[in-house]
């Protein structure tokens, strides 16, 4: 990603030079500079709009389901033909069912994938939050404390990385879900299944962030303001969270944005393997899993969720890249 990085750096340099000419004394914070750079990058802006669109859709879906506009659960067997495929041309598209109905049970495709976006995003978002929180906390502690604490956290990271997490997910899924429902009294069904996936994604995904943050902290802790804080007798916790953390928000934001697409596709892959939230509750993953076998017989049913997953994953990735380019200190200098 060197070329977009250089581009955006150049583009960013020009207007700010221009601005200085006109106002003479305009000063800009690093955040403002980064934002200006980000806005200049069309790719990033488009992906930001798409991401916002998805988020709005995800928030709207439960409301639309409550009010009856979307109905992801009611079957419409009368709309299916003898082969249990949607009857009529264009995969059964109609005003009532703009994207047709699914083969087999005849549930509304638009409702299922729309509602599926909500569940997928909730799973990915919660997983990312856990991963980033754990990763940042351990990264700061390891980087700042050093010594045996650092080595222990480092070994734990190695261990987690070496762990076959897909296997664990597959083998321990029934056990894990049962643990959640029986010991923690999480209601059975989509909630406990979703929670299990979130926990596993989060608790196995934090290692990258931890390493990244540790590296950043290693260099930050040698800086003067940290020495100053230490001399003033600031507590460790104050240094970690009040001095170091505010200087780390750029990499944190970037990793978070890059976790999202990874977890969205991870949810889809897990749904294919039979872990994750089970039907009839739709997620993009389990909808696509069902649709895969119909790729030939009912193309739209396959294409719609596949396209939505691809679009959100690409958008989040581009957004993450754009953010990194805009926030990267090297581009600033």
């Amino acid at each position, binding site marked *: 990603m060197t070329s977009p990085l250089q581009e955006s750096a150049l583009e960013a340099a020009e207007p700010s030079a221009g601005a200085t000419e006109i106002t003479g004394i305009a000063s800009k914070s690093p955040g403002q500079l980064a934002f200006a750079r980000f806005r200049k990058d069309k790719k990033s802006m488009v992906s930001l709009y798409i991401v916002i669109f998805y988020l709005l859709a995800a928030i709207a879906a439960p409301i639309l389901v409550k009010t009856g506009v979307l109905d992801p*659960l*009611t*079957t419409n*067997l009368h709309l*299916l033909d*003898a*082969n*249990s*495929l949607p009857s009529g041309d264009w995969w059964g598209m109609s005003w009532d069912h703009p994207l047709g109905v699914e*083969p*087999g*049970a005849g*549930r509304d495709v638009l409702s299922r994938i729309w509602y599926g976006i909500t569940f997928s995003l909730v799973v990915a978002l919660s997983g990312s939050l856990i991963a980033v929180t754990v990763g940042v906390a351990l990264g700061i502690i390891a980087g700042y404390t050093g010594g045996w604490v650092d080595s222990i956290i480092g070994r734990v990271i190695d261990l987690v990385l070496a762990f076959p997490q897909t296997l664990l997910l597959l083998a321990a899924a*029934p056990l894990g879900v049962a643990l959640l429902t029986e010991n923690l009294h999480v209601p*059975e*069904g989509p909630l406990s299944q979703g929670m299990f996936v979130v926990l596993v994604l989060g608790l196995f995904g934090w290692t990258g962030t931890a390493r990244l943050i540790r590296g950043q902290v290693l260099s930050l802790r040698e800086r003067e303001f940290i020495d100053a804080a230490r001399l003033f007798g600031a507590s460790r916790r104050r240094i970690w969270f009040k001095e170091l953390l505010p200087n780390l928000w750029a990499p944190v934001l970037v990793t978070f944005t890059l976790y999202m697409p990874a977890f969205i596709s991870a949810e889809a892959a897990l749904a294919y393997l*039979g872990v994750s939230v*089970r*039907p*009839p509750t739709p997620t993009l993953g389990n909808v696509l*899993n*069902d649709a895969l*076998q*119909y790729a*030939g*017989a*009912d193309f739209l049913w396959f294409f719609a969720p596949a396209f939505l997953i691809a679009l959100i994953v690409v958008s989040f990735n581009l957004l993450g890249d754009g953010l990194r380019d805009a926030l990267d200190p090297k581009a600033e200098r």
Partner: protein
Amino acid sequence: MAKMRKRMVALGGATAMLMATLAACGGDSGSSGNNGDGNDTPSAKGGTLLYLQHFPFESTDPQRIYYGVELANFRRTLYRSLVAFPFNEDPDIANTPVPDLATDTGTSSEGGAVWSFTLKDGIKWEDGSDITCEDFKYGASRAFADDILTGGAGFYLKGYLDIPEGGYSGPYSGKGQENFDKAVTCDGNTITYRFNKPWPDFPLSVASLMATDPYKESFDKGDKSKFTVLSNGPYKIEGNKWNVNKGATLVRNEEYDPSTDSPDLLRQANPDQIDYELYTESEPIIERLIADGGDDRNAVTAARIPPSFFSQIEGPIADRATLVESPYNSYLVPNHEKLTDVKVRQALALATNMNGRLQTLGGDKAGVPAYSIINPGLPGYSEQEQFTGHDDGDPEGAKALLEEAGVTLPYPITFTYGQSDTNDKAAAVLAEGWEKAGFKVKLDPLADTYYDIISLPDKESDVVLAGWGADWPSAMTVLPPLFDSRANFATDDDGNVTNLGQDYGAYQSDEFESLVDQAATAPDIDTQNDLLTQADTLLANDVAYIPLDTTSFYWLRGSGITGFMTDAASSSYPDLGPIGVTQ
């Protein structure tokens, strides 16, 4: 019945059977073609048949085989028995055993409690040695070593042979051998079985299952023999060992003498070679068969066409497809521990949308509505009034029943089923019908351990999904195995029920059990069937089960296959007896 495409067969595995089907009408529903042309034009000898398997066989030891498809396959190729079912589309013929290794279909005395068979001369194992009466005796003795030889269907033989309970523990430990030697005796070439009660349909069981198949003692390595094969049929396995992960190649057995067999009834053995190729799922197999290229033209499979392929089966491809009714029924079992009010169970049955469920599974190619747990092809079948007239479900009627029962609505129930993409949708349709009637349904899809879990007495489920097919053409292998609590319940030392066996609903009725006892000792088959029909009506009125469908088998084969037939003898799987290939 969880993952439909795989588990459907596993379900066959748990039940393995041979039985009458509606194959009389060719089982063919018009659209698909030339079922059974093998009767008119005998297939040519030679060529290689390709058999595409979609799941691995559990074992190739005859005393450990219970999958319907495997019994059907091996009876025609590797393992002969005293008597066997002939291939024929007329179920009356296909359900009547003919002599195979024995000279006749057996003689019974003492009211059916003693059976004798005389062996033919010149019958040989693939190593050239004679098949002796002792080999048969040894084979039968292996039914008692079910701690080592797990998985087979020897429990019928074990239960019937006149040996005190626990009086024999199989040939490996040899404990109680003298008891076994009294129950099964050899007199020259004649083997005699003595049972503790009349077993009038014993020859049917011999032909259907492999518990009484001969086994050569010197070849027996116990559990290590799980995948070795000493053939006595027209084929043998290259290398004597079945590769469970890959399949095997069957070549001609030089020691097999067709003059000791009835090739026109049992084994035409047309192909020179049969190649088994193993997949883990159905889709790639069906794709290959649709493409019909190269060697695949001579391919056949026991993988049913999945619904997503139905729209592709048209034109010339439809000529290679066959739709038959199978000997399997699907049904629901209400949990009698929880749904104690018969009106609630009736309401559940009334609100069950059979047609809707079938529609999600693929319409008439998936199955037809059933009105009894007994398959329509079985003697003793009769439509149960309780279940007729509401194929689409009758939520209003069901609601009225629930109100009559005076329960609080919505009435919460948990529906447990084996998870699969299609089952998920079918469950959604069933749940929708029930909810219209005033139930509140929680769906509880389970993974691989499905049957273990629904056999537990304290499960949360109110209703579970199951499937069954008879082990031989008699309802005696349907009703007692599924609803006789004495045969199913396992108890611990304190007398608490620890396992329900296959009586998933914990159903217990003295009236039913006495009817079954009367049927077991009935003087003739007709009386037996009348009693079983009565017992079935009792079950239906108690709503011990709710029938869902008689499952259809929808087969596809390569264009080079000749003599394709699915019949009662092969449990509606492709019958390898008359099959041939074009070279």
